[in-house]
């Protein structure tokens, strides 16, 4: 088995997941409508905030930049596949057997599937969000270097979020239900990742702590990189993402190996 063949397997899982995602038009329309409503509400809120502020910048961003930042963070957040609940379901229903009968890594299979799902969802969210932002506030100046920096931190943002959700899903081996943990996790990402508010708006004492937490690498880093790119931020983000991915991946490896050894198989 060559590395290419092995990579091709996981690529095809991602490709099939992407196709499957597009097959269900109803869900795509629902997601787009939800994103449009959220962006409109935030646009109105931020307009009031900027009108009340004495400067034309809040947290270092202009109003159009703020809305484009929200487009990026919302597009990332709303593109998250249901990894934790799928792993939870695999464990609870015994569907795990269907995955383990294949010549694949369990985590690798889920990662490919999640990435296939996520890329399609993110692309649709971004397209819809961009149209809304163009209509509401118009374009912002973009540089190619900024787009490249944004694309450089995006894959690790997706990977980190996957690892976090996968770890929560694996807790189903010990817990009755992981839905509570999943809610805490998603709300933490939302609050500390900078989904609604850029980290530059948080109290100065909190900002350095939030920046080194993995949550900021999932939302704030790509969002900021898109509207206000900087090489310093890129370097900082890549280091934090690298360390966080290594820690999360190590935890997934250990927890999965313990979990699969204590696997029960009741009821067929």
């Amino acid at each position: 088995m060559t590395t290419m063949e092995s990579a091709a397997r996981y690529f095809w899982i991602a490709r099939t997941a992407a196709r499957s995602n597009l097959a269900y038009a109803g869900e795509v329309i629902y997601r787009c409508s939800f994103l449009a409503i959220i962006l409109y509400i935030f646009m109105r809120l931020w307009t009031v905030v900027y009108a009340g502020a004495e400067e034309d910048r809040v947290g270092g961003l202009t109003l159009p930049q703020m809305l484009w930042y929200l487009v990026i963070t919302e597009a990332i957040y709303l593109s998250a596949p249901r990894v934790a609940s799928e792993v939870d379901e695999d464990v609870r229903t015994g569907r795990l057997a269907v995955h383990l009968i294949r010549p694949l890594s369990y985590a690798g299979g889920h990662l490919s599937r999640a990435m296939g799902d996520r890329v399609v969802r993110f692309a649709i969210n971004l397209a819809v969000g961009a149209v809304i932002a163009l209509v509401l506030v118009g374009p912002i100046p973009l540089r190619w270097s900024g787009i490249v920096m944004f694309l450089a931190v995006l894959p690790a943002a997706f990977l980190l979020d996957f690892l976090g959700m996968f770890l929560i899903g694996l807790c189903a081996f010990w817990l009755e239900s992981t839905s509570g943990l999943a809610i805490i996790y998603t709300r933490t990402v939302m609050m500390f990742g900078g989904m609604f508010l850029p980290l530059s708006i948080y109290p100065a004492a909190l900002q350095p702590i939030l920046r080194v937490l993995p949550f900021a690498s999932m939302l704030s880093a790509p969002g900021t990189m898109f509207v206000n790119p900087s090489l310093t931020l890129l370097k900082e983000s890549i280091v934090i993402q690298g360390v966080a991915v290594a820690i999360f991946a190590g935890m997934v490896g250990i927890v999965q190996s313990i979990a699969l050894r204590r696997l029960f198989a009741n009821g067929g």
Partner: protein
Amino acid sequence: MNRGVEIRELRKNFALTRWTGFSRSVFKVVAVNGISMDVPEGQAVAFIGPNGAGKSTTIKMLTGILHPTSGNVSVLGFTPWRDRRKLAHSIGAVFGQRSQLWYHLPPGDTFELLSRIYSLERSEFIRTRDVLIERFNLGSFMATPVRKLSLGQRMRAEVAASLLHRPRVLFLDEPTIGLDVIARQELRSLICEWNRNDGTTIFLTSHDAGDIEHVAQRVVVINHGQVVVDDNVVAVRRKYLGAKILRVQFHELPRTMLLAGVTMLRESAFEWTLKVDTAVTPVRVVTAAVLDAGSVADIAVEDPPLEEVIARIYSESRKEVPT
């Protein structure tokens, strides 16, 4: 003899934790208790037992999904839990109620994906896929999303998908569950045909006696994690009931017949269905008595239904093995 599956003293214990207030107690549950058996390549074996007997646990150890507490297993020369990914290329599985097909996509897309997962040669994949489409009659719905298929169509596609990489051993866990009579018969004959033509070893678990009777040559019954019966299907039926069914048609109204060990199951004017306890009265004695009772147009001696045999084995093993 080429041994496809070798199992030696296989055991699996689970620890069950119970909380009473703040005190925690751990119980040991013995799911599989020293199973040993061999399955030669190409054989179709029914692996049956009542709920909680340890069937699924055993199958999951044979496929590498579960680690045993002790014992050895060799499937096609691999130790399943150590060589899970290598073994996966040579085995296939259908877990009745758990689909491997992508719900929103047509079966063809899952087939394509499986060909990549198993790294099949393109020409070999197309040849096998076309054979499966033809034999399993999948052509009419290969482009229909799985969510729009009937259960019968979906199960045919499930089994075909599990055969795409031409596995040498196929594990079927309740493959006909929920299917109607026709769909069940179709699926059974397809599995039999594949076993005969391709020499695929079949490891079947089912609660349906029809599946066992039509698909398997050998039946292994387990209860409380132990093998209680291991024989060929015909022998099991004979050995475990010691009874025969006699169907008789008369030209004229027969005289009443009373014999020890003979029970009338159904009686109409010109037709009798009798159950004979051969330990009490041999079949030849009953046959002679029947011929004496009236002018016989037709007579048939049959084995009792397998379902009855299985029920008896379950109830006997329940008495023998303390819980």
